[in-house]
């Protein structure tokens, strides 16, 4: 029987009522009395020296409040990078300055040069057009290989080259790795590109800066996944403001997908300008601006080699990746191709020798940072593609080859720094075989062939490191922040509860799922519990939402705080019933004394906490509010197996997805419906990457796919109905809920399944195609089929 409340139940998402009825409160809905508007003048070339910047005519335009240029920010800090990667020689990465407004040079199309603050948005835009700019164009740096050649144009003059770092993980002894390859019975090699993507949340970024002259307090309303992180970075590294004088509010946020984690120049600008102009300052990105200023995702070029012994055991894996950083280091950019990518190269397999090399490269393009999955999709894609290719080359079933090499004993120390605490990859694959109906594939293929179509089945596994992350571990790896989270549980006198959480909900359904946990622990109705998030003045602290961490880390803090509440409430109950604390039991919202018929209700206890007429004041304080910070002991390791069935039209190369099945192990599940939705959305994004999306710059650094006319987002009819199975569950061993996180899995696990399926289809049609880079567009499939 499915439960109808508490952990494991699927109540509908309470937040959807406001989203679906137009009652949401997004940042662009916020208008502060007297606000002015900012328009950023952005570079329309990829790389240039600013020889002249004359704002005098623009300043005289109607409505202009003030025009800011780089000169206004001399001495102000630049946008910081939150993770220092140490290269293979022990040296720190090259870290160029990232100014709020360009200082002497522009480095990508969209790089902000000047900011016009005016009474209206249109006036600001008019005035920006009147700024006279003298740009001396420099050669664009677009191709990563060329960027690393001797004598290449440098993106940053003060750096020694365009190489940010050259990093190695796993076996550092090149000769040892080579020996493993020399000894191999078979080596499969694959070169591939994991293309750049634009995140494209439905809501473009917005920032409103407000300054109160009377109290010297700043408020920033912003489209962020982590308001405390923004406050910390902006205060400590950029503007030098005292944190207690700065409030950051991220109200309803219309999707993030990673690109709203980062601290952006526009946020610091609006905060700064509100004080400088003594007026609230608002910026709303247009979609075109979003394409040119939101951090983009992926963009790896990789060579991967897999060594197998004569029995098809994986013996070694070597990867060489070029990772595009874009023009500047966005907040977590440096960690994505290293600690979020290299560490996952073991996948679900017990390959004993692994060497991962990543060279991060500066180019004159929009900065690249975490995008749903962040490094893990890149790792999964190359590994699961090379395994598929190897299976074909050695002539074994790709599922059998995977099963043979699965990690089966836990905990398992990978050669690339992680310890998987638990998992059951064979069990998950068993679920997939049923969910995807492997048995019926041959008949479906025959049916497709009758209709002149090629049908393919693609399978892959994935593992991710989520629940980011143990602070001591990430600190050792170069993170400049801790990655714990926090929650305050505030019980009101009448028994209802507000939980202030550091995790931010922008599509994940926290407002529904988190109360399910607290309500279950206490035994009260979910409607009595509400979460509060997205405002640094209301919540204790929080590192925000990304890396599938909210429930695993912040949810754990919430559990700890609720445990403290229950302990204290038991003491009060014991006092009321004149019993000993140890004898008090809490069930269904009623405290009773073990072995007696004495009981008091939850509401009696909470009222007593706030009306302490009869209260153990000598032992405990009145009130009922507790805070907990939670720092996880390890990452969590969601894992799964996905299967995709495609049809290929051999005449046009068009791929249609006919079936898609996902078997995931997320550990325990709080709200199965929300988890289904997260997986559906993730797979949709993965299919978008596999078939449609492509962020392309031309040789001069112009973004060719700069609007929806050329950047193909997945639409409803591009995706099939999904079969999703979460019944394979190995609970996380180290957090109190046993949860692992589910937000990124779909986007991580699905691209290789799609591409593997396309290759399988083409092979079945007698076309010996080894690989097609994503997006697997009709044109690319047709080209691959025709030589």
């Amino acid at each position, binding site marked *: 029987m499915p439960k109808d409340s508490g952990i494991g139940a699927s109540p509908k998402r309470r937040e959807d009522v406001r989203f679906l009825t137009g009652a949401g409160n997004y940042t662009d809905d916020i208008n502060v009395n007297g606000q002015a508007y900012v328009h950023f003048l952005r570079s329309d070339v990829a790389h240039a020296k600013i020889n002249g910047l004359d704002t005098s005519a623009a300043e005289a335009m109607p409505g202009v409040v003030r025009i800011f240029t780089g000169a206004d920010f001399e001495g102000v800090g630049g946008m910081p990078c939150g993770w220092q990667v140490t290269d293979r020689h022990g040296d720190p990465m090259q870290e160029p300055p990232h100014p709020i407004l360009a200082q002497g040079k522009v480095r990508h199309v969209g790089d902000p040069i000047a900011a016009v603050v005016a009474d209206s948005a249109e006036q600001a835009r008019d005035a920006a057009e009147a700024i006279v700019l003298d740009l001396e164009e420099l050669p664009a740096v677009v191709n990563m290989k060329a960027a690393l050649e001797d004598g290449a144009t440098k993106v940053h003059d003060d750096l020694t080259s365009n190489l940010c770092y050259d990093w190695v993980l796993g076996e550092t002894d090149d000769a040892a790795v080579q020996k493993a390859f020399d000894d191999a019975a078979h080596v499969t090699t694959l070169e591939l590109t994991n293309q750049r993507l634009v995140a494209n949340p439905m809501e473009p970024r917005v920032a409103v800066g407000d300054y109160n002259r009377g109290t010297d307090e700043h408020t920033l309303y912003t489209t962020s996944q982590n308001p405390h992180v923004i406050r910390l970075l902006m205060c400590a590294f950029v503007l030098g403001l005292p944190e207690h004088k700065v409030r950051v509010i991220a109200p309803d946020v219309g999707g993030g997908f990673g690109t709203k984690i980062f601290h952006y120049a526009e946020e610091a600008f609006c905060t700064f300008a509100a004080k400088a102009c003594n007026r609230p300052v608002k910026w709303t990105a247009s979609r075109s601006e979003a394409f040119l200023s939101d951090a983009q995702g992926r963009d790896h070029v990789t060579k991967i080699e897999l060594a197998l012994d004569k029995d098809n055991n994986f013996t070694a894996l070597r990867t060489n990746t070029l990772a595009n950083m874009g023009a500047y280091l966005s907040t977590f950019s440096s960690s994505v191709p290293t600690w979020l990518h290299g560490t996952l190269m073991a996948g679900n397999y017990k390959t004993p020798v692994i060497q991962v090399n990543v060279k991060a490269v500066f180019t004159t393009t929009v900065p690249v940072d975490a995008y749903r999955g962040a490094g893990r999709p890149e790792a999964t894609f190359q590994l699961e593609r090379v395994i598929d290719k190897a299976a074909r080359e050695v002539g074994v079933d790709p599922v059998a080859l995977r099963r043979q090499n699965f990690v089966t004993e836990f905990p398992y120390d990978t050669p690339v720094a992680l310890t998987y605490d638990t998992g059951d990859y064979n069990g998950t694959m068993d679920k997939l075989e049923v969910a995807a109906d492997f048995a019926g594939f041959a008949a479906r293929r025959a049916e497709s062939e009758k209709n002149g179509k090629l049908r393919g089945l693609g399978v892959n596994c994935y593992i991710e490191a989520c629940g980011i992350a143990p602070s001591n571990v990430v600190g050792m790896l170069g993170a400049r922040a801790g990655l714990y989270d926090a929650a305050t549980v505030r019980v009101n006198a009448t028994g209802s509860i507000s939980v202030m959480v550091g995790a931010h909900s922008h599509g994940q359904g926290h407002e529904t799922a988190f109360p399910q946990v607290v309500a279950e622990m206490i035994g009260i109705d979910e409607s009595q519990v509400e979460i509060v998030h997205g405002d640094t003045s209301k919540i204790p602290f929080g590192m925000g939402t990304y890396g599938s961490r909210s429930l695993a880390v912040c949810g754990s803090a919430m559990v700890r705080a609720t445990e403290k509440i229950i302990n204290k409430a038991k003491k009060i109950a014991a006092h009321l019933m004149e019993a000993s604390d140890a004898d008090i039991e809490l069930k269904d919202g009623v405290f009773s004394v073990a072995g007696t018929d004495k009981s008091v209700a939850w509401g009696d206890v909470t009222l007593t906490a706030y009306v302490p007429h009869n209260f153990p004041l000598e032992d405990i304080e009145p009130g009922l509010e507790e805070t907990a910070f939670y720092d996880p002991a390890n990452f969590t390791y969601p894992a799964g197996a996905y299967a995709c069935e495609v049809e290929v039209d051999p005449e046009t190369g068009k791929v249609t997805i006919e079936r898609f099945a996902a078997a995931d192990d997320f550990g325990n599940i709080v709200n199965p419906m929300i988890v289904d939705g997260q997986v559906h959305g993730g797979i949709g994004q993965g299919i978008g990457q596999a078939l449609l999306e492509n962020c392309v710059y031309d040789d001069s650094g112009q973004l060719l796919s700069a609007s929806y006319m050329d950047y193909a987002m997945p639409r409803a009819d591009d995706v099939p109905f999904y079969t999703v199975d979460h019944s394979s569950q190995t609970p996380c061993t180290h957090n109190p809920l046993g949860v692992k996180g589910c937000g990124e899995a779909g986007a991580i696990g699905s691209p290789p399944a799609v591409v593997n399926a396309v290759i399988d289809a083409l092979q079945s049609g007698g076309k010996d195609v080894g690989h097609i880079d994503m997006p697997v*567009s009709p*044109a690319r499939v047709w080209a691959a089929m025709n030589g």
Partner: protein
Amino acid sequence: MYNFEFVKPASVADAVAALGEEDAQALGGGQTLIPTLKQRLAAPSKLVSLSGIAEMKGVSAADGVLSVGGATTHGTVAAEAGAYPALADLASHIGDPAVRNRGTIGGSLANNDPSACYPSAALASGATIVTNAREIAADDYFQGMFTTALEEGEIITAVKFPIPEAANYQKFLQPASRFALVGVFVAKYADGVRVAVTGASEDGVFRWSEAEAALSKEFRGDALMDLKVDPANMIGDLHGTKEYRAHLVGVLTKRAVVAAG
């Protein structure tokens, strides 16, 4: 957007007069023009809306000719051009419902986007573009990407399509915009077959004369077997190479012939 004046005349004569002003521009459904204005890529002083002109709206069929008013929306054509099913079908696959409820045939033909659908129908049907001043044969009207025979201020008031014996439009979607990556309109008349191709050529919509000759002899998909389109003049971009588009022209033409029956 820059500021502009806005007028909504009720007759073609008033619209023509309003368009006589310097930098005045006609506004059909605004599905191309409004995004252009929003991006500040155009700065007309005055927009002359054609949507209030009753004489420019509606679909009617008589004597083997389907007439569509220049300000008729795609949605109306989809619903009311039953006398020319292939044309109604084409209109029903333009953009999304919002686009179809605003966008007009006059706007589409005036704009002559190289990937738009209607130009292929007009050219394959040997349609007549009727303006406030004259009648222009489709063969003379389309003059390359975004270029037409229209004079400054000239308004398309109607389009007259001779109704073919059989016809079909095959649209292969550009994955992002869902305009035609390649679209082929085949129309079979008593005196021969016409084939017009959109989306493919650097020169905009064009007639594939070899296919027309072959199909006029024998209206069967197989008739095209030995024909190839020269990739040289095709569009090559991030959605498809010249060779791919040339190949698609052949595939889609064959499919259109088969579907037309």
